[in-house]
Every structure is written in C-alpha cells, then in structure tokens.
C-alpha cells in the first residue's frame, strides 16, 4: 500500500522563512497569511487529502470512469469525496470573498493544490478545472454573467470546464471550426465538437459551466476570429437555479494511459445556448490570462506526483533488505542491509528530493509573483511581477513536468521489479504523470513559447526579472565563507545560461531553425539554473536559521545537504546542454523528411 504525508513542514518553511510573506502584509489579502493561519489550513488540508482523497487514488485508477448513454460516472467514492470537499469549503480557498470564497492568495492555494495532486490527481482534476473556468469568467465576463455563475462555482456546487481542443486542432487553435450564431436575444447558438475535455461530464455537481472557444459567423479567419462563451449544461431558470438541459452532450470518454478517475470527454454542441465572455473575437486573449495559472498548476502536478513517488521510494529503500553495503555490513541485526546504503540508490532518492524541494520553491516563488502581479498597489511592482510570471510560466510547465516524470521514473527504479507491478502503486504514478508533459501545451510548445515569444518580448525586458536578481545574489554572496562554494557552482551555470541566451538571440535572428533546435535544451538549462538559484537562497535561509539556533536543526541541515547535492550532482548538466544548443540546427535538419 502506498503512503502519503503532505509535506506541511516544507510548505511552512517556503511561505514564512523562504518567501517571508510577512514582508508583503501591505498587499491586499496578504495580511491574513500568518503562520498560525496557514498552519491551521495546511494541517486540515493535509488531513483531508490524506484521509479522504488518497484512499481513492488506487481504487479510482483500477475502476476508471463509466460512460452510459451520455452519462458519466466517476469511480466509486469520488462523489462522496467531492461532497466533503464542497462541505469543507475548500473550493473557495482562493475565490473572491464577494463570491463566498476566502480570497486567499495563490501562495496559499498552491500548497493545497499540491496536496490534492499528490493524494489523488484524478480527483484533483475536477476542482482544478473549475478553478480555471472561475478565473477566466472572473477576469473577462460581464457583471451579469459573473453574478449568475461565480457564487455557485466558488462553492463547488457547479463545476467548470475549458473547451479548446477539437479533433483536428489542439496547439493551433486558429483552425477552430465550432461555430457560434448570434441570436436576437444577444445569446449565441453553439455547434461543434470539442475533445479531450477534462471533467466535461459527471454527476458530482448540480451544473457544469463549459467555457467554449468558437467562431462567430462571419468572424475573421484564424486566431483573431475566436470568441469565448459560457455554455451551461443546464440552462438557468429566472431564479438562477438549473433548469432545462442545454444542447450539449458527452459523446464518449477516452480510454487512456493514466489519470483514469478523471473523465476525458468528447463534448458535442448542437445549437447549445451560449453567452459571450469578454469581447467579440478576443477569446484567445481571455483564455490566455487563465492559461498562465493553469500551466503553473500543471507544473505543480509534476512536483506533486514526484513527491508521492519520493515518499514511497524512500520508505521502500529503508525497508527493503538486500545484500550488504560495499564497505561491509551496516545493519548487523538484519539479515541484509536495507538498500538505502547503496550510493546508486541514494543518488536516485536525492535526485528526486532535490528536485521536489527545489521545484516547489520555484513554483511558490513564481506564485508569489502571480499574486503581486494581481494585487500589488504599485504599478511598477505589478509590471515587474507580470514579466517574471510570463517568463517563468513555460519553464514551470515544461521543466517541472519533464523532470517530475524523470524523477518518478527513478522512484520506480528504486523498487526494482516491484515498481512495475500494481501492488505498490508506483507504476500508476508514472502513468498518471505522463499526461502532464502533454496537456496545456506540450513541453516542446513551452520551449517555443520561451524562446520565440518570451525572450524577445519587449526587447528582452522579461529576462531582466530573472537575470538581475541572480546576478546580484551571486555578487553579494560569492565571498561568503559558507555559501561561497555553492555560489561558484551557480555562477558557472548562470554564465552558460547567459551564453546560450546570447547565442540564441543572435543565431535565431538570422535563422529561426537555430532557435527552434535549441529551444527545449535551453528551457531545461534555464530550469536547472532557476532551481539552482532557489537552492542557493534556501541554503542561505537555512544557514541563517542554524546560526540563530533554530530548534529544527535537522530540517535545515538536510536543506544544506540537498543544496549541495543539487549544485554538484544535478546542476552540471548545464554544461552538456550548452554544448547541444550551440551545435545548432544542422544535425536535426540534415536528413531528408522522406528518410524518416
């Protein structure tokens, strides 16, 4: 049986010691984010995820979702868990207080999201999608639509979905065919087919609010002719309660590799009534605001699942006895030594853990900037935060899911053959995690977003929000007796990142293939440096805590061990990445298409 304990201690550390959120109490909504409140929230959230969601993780995977005549039933226990989730008010954690939520910032929402992901990513999909839909409506819709839909979505009584993909287009949404015909009453009739719609149909919520991208009759071709619509599963009666069924049905659900408790639906719209959200033909822009948040959420899925894999692998490595240590018996009272004594096993576990904690810090740091971009009273702070958020989003999405998957793979490796069988739950994590590298834009698409869009944006302005603080940190701490050796490691890799950036800018301008061929390696290089920077800053915090005699010595010592491991055993990969980037496009483009 797999185990899971929410990493509440690390979350507390990141929020209060690492990000020092107390410094931002002037930002609206931050004054509440005190250690005693976040402790209370995280402790209860941990209980909920461990005791309610986690027990349904394996059974949900085993059973999957059911489709019958358009009705979709999630696995046994999901509805009860969803009811408990609603009753606990968890859906409203980061929703606005005017809609009945708690109005707490992302930095409180993200750790909760991680717990939901680790304990049961399939279950987490349902409220996760609602959250995205809520945000898109909140930021774009008219007051009337907001008033009608958001309070029920904040409580979780109604859930939400995002309908972008169609059978013939996913990444290139300019090809969308779903059409919207204007009606005399101002509404639209929506007709078309959407696929891969997570939580598109189920019986856990009273109503489902679909957000649908469609093309209004006569709209311009391509991406500039796409509009966004609300299409409710049940039309609303004058009193606002769900009434008649709207013309939207679930045609089937996908059979898939993992994430089996989450219903992936084909949605058929047949003259369904829809309401325009935001401006006509500006649907993509409305959707993209929400997509930053969704992509950070998916990045977090990489971390959450890797955390689950680590906890189990570490536990197994301490229990599984097999052979003896290379330097002689370490556990004489046992018939053999636990496999944790072996350097290769330790390397796998440390790789996982250094990634988990470093990536969690990076996600939290980015989430803080998302909050500042949203809430800070000073416009220049908001703009800087928005720049950093835009820059980091593709990195969080791709690096955290690619590395998350790799990390889970190490977790399976620790188990030997026992990782491959269902009993221990490890193979499920692999299957569940695989999708994270694909949806919300594949890793390759994220790399193109980073290199093709984010680097050149505003003449390279976005980069400054990362390069300047890193540069400054290196200069300020390179002579520090304790931190110095770690700083040197980061400085070397940072120089490689700068070199790669300059090379891509110069070569990419002449030949876009040069940029395209190095994009994914560049994103990984960037990810490594970003996580390295987080480890440096954590090392600094933990050194200070140890110096001031913090009681939790072991916790901070472990941070230092992990920081060192990351710098010496993971960060040096930047060297090979730089070589690969600079090898350019020629090795990729030389072979003829027909030869493949």
């Amino acid at each position, binding site marked *: 049986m797999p185990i899971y*304990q929410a990493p509440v201690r690390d979350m507390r550390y990141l929020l209060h010691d690492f990000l020092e959120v107390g410094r931002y109490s002037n930002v609206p909504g931050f004054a*509440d984010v005190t250690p*005693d*409140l976040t*402790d*209370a*929230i995280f*402790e*209860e959230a941990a*209980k*909920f995820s461990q005791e*309610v969601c986690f027990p349904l993780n394996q059974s949900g995977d085993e059973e999957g979702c059911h489709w019958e005549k358009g009705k979709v039933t999630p696995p046994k226990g999901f509805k009860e868990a969803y009811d*408990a989730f609603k*009753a*606990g*008010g*968890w859906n*409203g*954690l980061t929703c606005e207080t005017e809609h009945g939520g*708690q109005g707490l910032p992302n930095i409180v929402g993200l750790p909760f999201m991680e717990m939901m992901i680790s304990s049961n990513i399939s279950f987490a999909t349902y409220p996760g999608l609602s959250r995205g839909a809520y945000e898109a409506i909140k930021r774009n819709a008219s007051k009337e639509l907001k008033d009608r839909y958001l309070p029920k979505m904040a409580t979780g009584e109604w859930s939400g979905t995002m309908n972008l993909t169609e059978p013939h287009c996913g990444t290139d949404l300019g090809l969308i065919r779903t059409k919207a015909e204007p009606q005399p009453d101002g509404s639209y009739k929506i007709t078309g087919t959407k696929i891969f719609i997570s939580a598109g149909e189920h019986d856990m919520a009273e109503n489902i609010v679909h957000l649908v991208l469609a093309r209004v009759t006569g709209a311009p071709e391509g991406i500039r002719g796409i509009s966004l619509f609300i299409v409710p599963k049940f039309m609303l009666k004058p009193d606002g309660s769900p009434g008649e069924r709207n013309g939207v049905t679930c045609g089937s659900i996908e059979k898939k590799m993992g994430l089996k408790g989450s219903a992936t639906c084909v949605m058929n719209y047949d003259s369904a009534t829809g309401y325009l959200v935001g401006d006509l033909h500006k649907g993509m822009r409305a959707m993209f605001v929400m997509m930053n948040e969704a992509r950070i959420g998916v990045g977090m899925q990489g971390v959450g699942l890797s955390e689950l894999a680590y906890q189990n692998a570490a536990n197994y490595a301490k229990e599984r006895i097999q052979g003896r240590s290379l330097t002689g018996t370490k556990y004489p009272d046992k018939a053999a030594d636990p496999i944790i004594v072996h350097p290769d096993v330790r390397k796998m576990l440390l790789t996982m853990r250094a990634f988990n904690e470093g990536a969690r810090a990076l996600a939290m740091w980015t989430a803080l900037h998302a909050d500042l971009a949203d809430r800070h009273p000073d416009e220049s702070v908001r703009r800087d935060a928005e720049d950093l958020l835009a820059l980091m989003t593709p990195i969080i999405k791709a690096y955290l899911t690619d590395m998350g998957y790799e990390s889970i793979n190490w977790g399976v490796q620790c188990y030997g053959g026992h990782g491959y069988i269902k009993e221990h739950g490890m193979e499920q994590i692999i299957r569940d995690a695989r999708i994270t590298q694909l949806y919300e834009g594949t890793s390759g698409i994220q790399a193109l977003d980073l290199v093709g869009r984010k680097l050149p944006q505003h003449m390279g302005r976005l980069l400054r929000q990362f390069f300047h603080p890193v540069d400054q940190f290196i200069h300020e701490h390179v002579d520090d007796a304790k931190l110095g050796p770690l700083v040197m490691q980061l400085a070397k890799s940072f120089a490689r990142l700068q070199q790669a950036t300059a090379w891509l800018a110069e070569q990419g301008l002449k030949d876009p293939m040069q940029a395209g061929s190095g994009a994914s390696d560049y994103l990984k290089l960037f990810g490594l440096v970003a996580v390295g920077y987080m480890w440096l800053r954590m090392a600094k915090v933990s050194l200070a805590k140890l110096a001031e005699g913090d*009681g*939790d010595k*072991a*916790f901070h010592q472990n941070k230092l061990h992990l920081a060192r491991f990351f710098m010496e055993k993971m960060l040096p990969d930047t060297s090979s990445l730089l070589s690969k980037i600079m090898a350019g496009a020629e090795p990729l483009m030389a072979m003829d298409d027909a030869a493949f």
Partner: protein
Amino acid sequence: MKVLVAVKRVVDANVKVRVKADKTGVELANIKMAMNPFCEIAVEEAVRLKEKGKATEIVAVSMGPQSCQETIRTALAMGADRGVHVKTDAELQPLAVAKMLKAIVEAEKPGLVILGKQAIDNDCNQTGQMLAGLLGWPQGTFASKIDIGDGKIDVTREIDGGLETVSLKAPALVTTDLRLNEPRYASLPNIMKAKKKPIEEKTPEALGVDVTPRLKTLKVEEPPKRKGGVKVASIQELVDKLKAEAGVIQ
C-alpha cells in the same frame, strides 16, 4: 446550556515516539503535535449538541505552553465558540489539571463538562474522575452515547461486560470513549472564523492552584524489544508453553 470541553495538546497519534537520550521523558522537540483524539471526540459531541439546539455555548479549555493555543484554535475551528488558555510551562499532572478546571468551571458555570476519557500521551485516565470528585458532580465516564433530557443527562457507558446507562442530574461531567462519534474535518470557512474567536489567557496562580507535581518521574524507558516467536506444532504444545514458559495459565 453552556458546555465546557477540555482539550489537551499531545504528540500526534501518527508520530513514532522516542525516549530522550537522558531518559527523563520522550522527545518533544520539533515533533508534530495535535489534539488528543479523545478530546476531539469531546469537542465533536459538544458541537453536535449545539447543532441539535441542546447546547448554547461551547468553551474549549487547554492548559500548558503558548502552543496550546493552536489546539484551542482547532477546537474553535470545529465549532467551539471561545477558548480559555491556562498558560504555564510547568509539568501538569492530572490533579493539578483537575483543580484548575474546577476553578474555571466555578467561574463559567457550565451545565455539562466533557473531557476525553484519557490522553494518548500518558494514558492517565484520571482527570475527569478527579474533577467530578472535586466538584461533587455526577459523572458518566467512557461514554458511547449522550442523551440530554430535561435536567438530566443519560450516558451510555462502555464497561467490561457491555453497556451501562446512567442517568445524571445536571450539571454533570462526561468522559468520552472512542465510539461516541467520529469527529468532523474542520471546514475552511470555520478555520478562518476561528482566527477571530476570543481566547482568554489565565495562569495557575490567578486560578489559585499550586501545580507542583505530586509524582516524580524517575526514569522513562522504551519497552523491551519484542523477541521473535516460535511456531508450535499442536495445541497441546501451545498450552504446555503457556503453562511452563509464559506462566499465564495454570
């Protein structure tokens, strides 16, 4: 009717407890702490009584260091209305706790006091009984069911032979057993509200109680490691071993 609930902060039930190297007690530094599970049941029962309209106000009381306020907050998040914290870093033994609770009960004048039957840290199972004795109140210990009637409280108790129901004249004291109820998860809105509920701070001195321990801990040791068992070939061999080796039957 006002209900007073006592809540104790203890090592979390999931933590593997380790004895300190100097054998003076168990390791508490940086260990996850939580509300004693029997106290959770007590709070839950009080909240249910309030939801049924049988209780009007719930006061949660805890005693010990500053961190006990977190445990009181947990009770407030479950539905208690306000807290009382007797702040002290001294070691508290059941008699001292009972005396301080007595002083608080006399001030608060609740119609019902609910305590856990015991705390999972030292398993004393004494405080409730001592408090009832000091107050001169009727007590229903090890409760698996509580019925509030007109001026009386029927308590179904779990006893060795089965169940026993006693009828207590209010005000009365009840200690909870495991099967009385299943405590709820605190909801997020209630966690947020709990932050604003009042906690009154008191001290043992202000309550006029001398908390000096009456018992002295000589040494704390881990139980001896379990030795490996053996398989027996027959029931006769088992009986022989129980007689001759274990000496548990004659």
